[in-house]
Each structure stands twice: as structure tokens, then as C-alpha cells.
């Protein structure tokens, strides 16, 4: 079979290179006589390696394939989003595109604090303040930051607690928190060793990640108390009048 094929190709090629023709003009062209070159093998087709090769598609098929791929991507995205919303709804209320944390027990008892001041951030707005006081049964002294991310698309508000004087208890809480972040991931930047909390977001994935962290850290009493009172701390950093009573 293959031999026959080669014979055909060879015959074809021999004819391809026709003998020199007498020029009929004033110029002359030297046509080389390829027949004197004896290439027995003939013309070969060297296909692209199968591992690289992609199916040949018409433009309509290519466009269809593109649309299908897009559809698949959207389907996946929608599925993920539905899952995120479901997880987030354990802790957040959804209204007008915002996922807002629902609990504030207003148990944060703070000493009179320094005034908050604006942070210099490139891509976001933020204020920070030293907070000193009692949260649950633990004294805290920390740098609290509230950062508003995003302008046009996904927006989020994040509270960060950076401990100033850490105790063995707070170190345990931080390491539990870090493990949870490693497991759940986070969509927003924060420094390792800090504790963060998303109070509001337009992005269900951000809320879902926070919800995941919260679920995984419920067994730490301090963190549980922190989530349940974080809105109050945030309000204080943001400069709002505090309704909670200050301890002496």
C-alpha cells in the first residue's frame, strides 16, 4: 500500500519539474532540470505531532466552540456564586447587592481612646486608631484599621486588628485564625499575624470566604466574641458616636 503511494507521488513530482523550456523572449532563464535529481522518496507529509494537534474547525464551529466554552465558564461561575451566597447567608444579610454582617452585641468595652486618623493608601480609603479595652474577658490593645476597598466594581469594608501587646491567649487566637485563612483563603490583602473581619461586601465570594473563616474559628471564644462585636469597633474607628457604655 505504502509503496504504491510512493510510486504515485514520485511520478507526480518528476512531472512537476518539467524540462527547461526555450525562452521565447529576449531574456533567458536557466531552468534547472530537476529530473536529474533522483529523489526516490517523493513528497512527504510531515504532520504536526498528535500531542500538539487541535481539531480543525470551521469559523462557525470555532465560534460555536467559543460560545460553548463561555457558557461553561458562566455556568461554573454561577454555580460557585450560588454556593458562596448560601455560605455567606449564614452570617450576612443580603440587600441591594450588599452582604452585611448581621450581629453586633455591642459588648466592646473600651477606654477613652486616641482619635482615629486617615491612612495613606494607594487604592483604598482607610482610617486607623489605637483601641484599648475589654472584649469578652480579654483585655486588648491593638491597632484597628478600617479599609474601604474598591470604587467601581466589587466593594468591601474590612476591619483589621493588629495586636500591640500580645498575650499567650491572643497568640493562640491568631494562630487559629491564620489556619482558617489558609484553609478558606481570602480575597483581600491583610498582614499575616493580624485578624481581619469583613463587615460589608458586594462580592459574595469575599463574604463566603469570611463566613468560612468564621465557621472554622467558632471554637475560639475570643474570636467568636470579636466577630459578634466587630461592628462596634468599626464604628468607633470610623468616628461614629458610640452608644455603648465605657467602663472605668
Amino acid at each position, binding site marked *: 500500500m505504502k509503496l504504491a503511494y510512493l510510486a504515485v507521488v514520485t511520478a507526480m513530482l518528476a512531472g512537476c519539474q518539467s524540462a*527547461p523550456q526555450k*525562452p521565447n523572449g529576449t531574456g*533567458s*532563464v536557466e531552468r534547472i532540470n*530537476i529530473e536529474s535529481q533522483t529523489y526516490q522518496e517523493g*513528497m512527504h*507529509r*510531515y*504532520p504536526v505531532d498528535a500531542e500538539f494537534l487541535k481539531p480543525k474547525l470551521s*469559523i462557525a464551529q470555532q465560534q460555536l466552540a467559543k460560545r460553548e466554552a463561555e457558557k461553561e465558564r458562566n455556568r461554573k461561575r454561577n454555580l460557585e456564586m450560588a454556593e458562596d451566597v448560601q455560605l455567606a447567608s449564614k452570617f450576612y444579610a443580603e440587600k441591594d447587592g450588599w452582604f452585611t454582617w448581621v450581629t453586633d452585641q455591642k459588648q466592646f468595652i473600651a477606654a477613652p481612646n486616641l482619635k482615629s486618623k486617615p491612612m495613606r493608601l494607594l487604592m483604598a480609603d482607610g482610617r486607623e486608631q489605637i483601641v484599648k479595652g475589654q472584649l469578652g474577658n480579654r483585655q486588648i490593645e491593638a491597632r484597628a484599621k478600617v479599609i474601604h476597598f474598591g470604587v467601581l466594581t466589587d466593594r468591601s469594608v474590612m476591619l483589621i486588628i493588629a495586636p500591640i501587646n500580645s498575650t499567650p491567649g491572643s497568640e493562640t487566637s491568631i494562630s487559629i485564625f491564620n489556619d482558617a485563612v489558609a484553609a478558606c483563603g481570602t480575597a483581600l490583602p491583610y498582614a499575616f499575624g493580624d485578624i481581619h473581619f469583613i463587615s460589608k461586601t458586594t462580592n459574595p465570594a469575599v463574604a463566603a470566604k469570611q463566613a468560612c473563616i468564621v465557621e472554622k474559628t467558632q471554637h475560639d471564644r475570643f474570636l467568636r466574641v470579636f466577630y459578634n462585636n466587630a461592628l462596634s469597633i468599626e464604628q468607633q474607628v470610623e468616628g461614629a458616636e458610640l452608644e455603648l457604655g465605657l467602663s472605668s
Partner: protein
Amino acid sequence: MKRRDFLKLSGGSLALASVPTWARSNNPNRRLVVFFLEGGLDGLSALIPKAEGALESHRESLLPTSLLDLNSHWALDPSLRNTHKLMLSQDILGVHATNFPYTKRSHFEGQNFIQGAGKAPFTESTGWIGRGLDLVNYGGRAMSLDTPLLLRGTTSIDNYYPAHVKGAYNPSSDLLKRIHSGLSEQWQTTNEKLIARVTKNTYQSNDRSPNALAREAGKALSQKDGPIAAMIRLGGYDTHAGQGSRLGSKLTELDLCISSLKDSLGEAWDNTTFITLTEFGRTVKVNGSSGSDHGYGTCMFIGGGAVNGGAVLADWPGLAKSDLFERRDLMATLDSRSLCAAALEHTLGLEHDEIAERVFFEPNLKRVTDRIYL
């Protein structure tokens, strides 16, 4: 690697692709685009026979540091990224060791011969595409100021090349009609085309880069009543010195042109064939100024939706000194006119024999259409 070993490796890899029905349909709206690479493309640098041991000893300094692999024998220059993708998706076929039967290494004779395709350079006043179009009475378009020989031979040829003239506006059809009687006959034919264009108001962009021209050609060809064939010239392939970076940027330009053409053709890509032509290949050995001199055999790219791509087609002659033409150039083992005839046959729906006889004046020209198209 010896040539024979090189061939052995490929012995069993004959692939028979099944033919999609859409590529078989007899479509009257087929199109042909020629990228004419002026100056003589160094085929060994564009489509690289990487398995050739002799390659390094001849021209190590001309080899790119990275390659776009196709298979164990062939690779593309890294500048040809889109071409590579289209080869992998089977839309482009590389053909190697090919040329028109012209061996005298002169740009002017070569360019003339490859466009005129007569018995010798300067014997024809029409080109092979022009003659083909004339047989079926179709039109073509040159993407340049003048009308290249390749497209001459049919009266329905026009040009596209945006003007940049200070202190002048687009001429109105009224004005053109009024100057008509003052023109000689040869200009009147041209004026009629200009009037037709002005009336349609098809001016679109004033970008004259080859890439923009490829895009405009694609747009024009995708129209139902658009031209059947177009030619785009790309200069600068005469790389006698400092070939590496110069050729790289030229190949990038060609690569962009190919992808722009495909994009702007839209679905017409399925009915379009593009081919690259160049007057000759270049010397196998690097010259004294890190370049290469005029040679003979070179490579050619044929692409389009109906092309049986995804492969390199060659009767590879080898690169050992004794395999070279006049012991210096890549031998051409395949007459490029057969490839051009295949493109005409597919595009215009003419019989191969008629094309061989009336377009190429070569009744014995062999038919390779089935090797090129699905």
C-alpha cells in the same frame, strides 16, 4: 543527520484526515490572498528543518535561540506565533524546498518571473492570477499604489492604498465624472473604478501598514460582491546583513498580517486561501556579515479554512553540500507553480489542465491540489 535518516523517521506517519463536509461544499465565493515577501525569504529560518545536523555547521549564528515546535523534524521561528497556532489547528500548511523554476538569483527577474509566470522573466505583461481571473471574469485588488504584475491580465482590478495628501479632500464622484472626457482611454478605465469606489464611499482607514492592509483586504474579500483575489506586499526580506533581528521583525509583521486577515475575513476564512510567495530562498551558509545571500529553494505557507493544514509538505533534499543546488542553496524539489495552480483551481473552480495550459503555459504542470486541500 543524513537526509535519508531524516526521511526514514517520517516514513510511517502518513495521516489521513477525514474531510469535514463544510470544506467540500462547492462554494462560488472563494477568495485568494497573496502575501508577496519581497527580497527573498530565507526559508530555512522561517520553517526550520531542526533535525538536520548540517544546519548548525552551516548557519549556527542564524538559528533562533528558541523554536516553536511542530514535530520531530520541523519548527517555526519564534516570531511566527499565530502561524504556529494555525498550523496546530490545521489551518496552515508549510511547504518546503520549493520555488518557481528560476535559479538566477536576481530580485527583479525573480519577482517578475514569479508574478508573470511565463517561460522566462520579462516575457509576460500579465500575471498568473490576472490571467486566471480573466478566464472566469472576476476581479482582484492590489493593496498598493500601483497594480503589480501578478494581478494584471483582467480588466476588473483595482487598488486600495490610503492617501496622505495635505491640502486635499477626497475627490467627489461628480468631479471625477467631469474630468472623464479629458482623460485618455487607459486612464478612463481607471477613472470608472475610482468613481465606483467614491460612490460606494469605501474609504475606511488611513493606516497603510501591511497589517492594516491585510485587514482591509479581509474586509473587502468578505463582501459578497468583493474582489476574488488580493495581493499584499511585504518588503525587507533581503537580509544580507544582521539577519537575526531583522528577519525576526519581518516575520512578526507577516504573522500579524495572517492573523489580521483571518480576523477580518470572519466566516469567509473558510472559503479563502492565502499563500506566501517570494522570489527565491537564501544561501544555506551564513555570509560574512551575519546574513545570507540570494539562493534558490525556500518555504511557502498556504493557509485557509479549506486547506489541509497541520503539516509540512516536502520532498526534503537534505543540506549536505552535495545535496545543495550548486553546492550552496537549498534545492527546490517542488515546483511552486503546482501549488499556485492548486490555489487557482480551488478558488476559481477551473480545471487544472486549463490552468496549466492557459495560465502557466505549461501543459505538463502536475496537479497537487489534493495534497493541499481537504
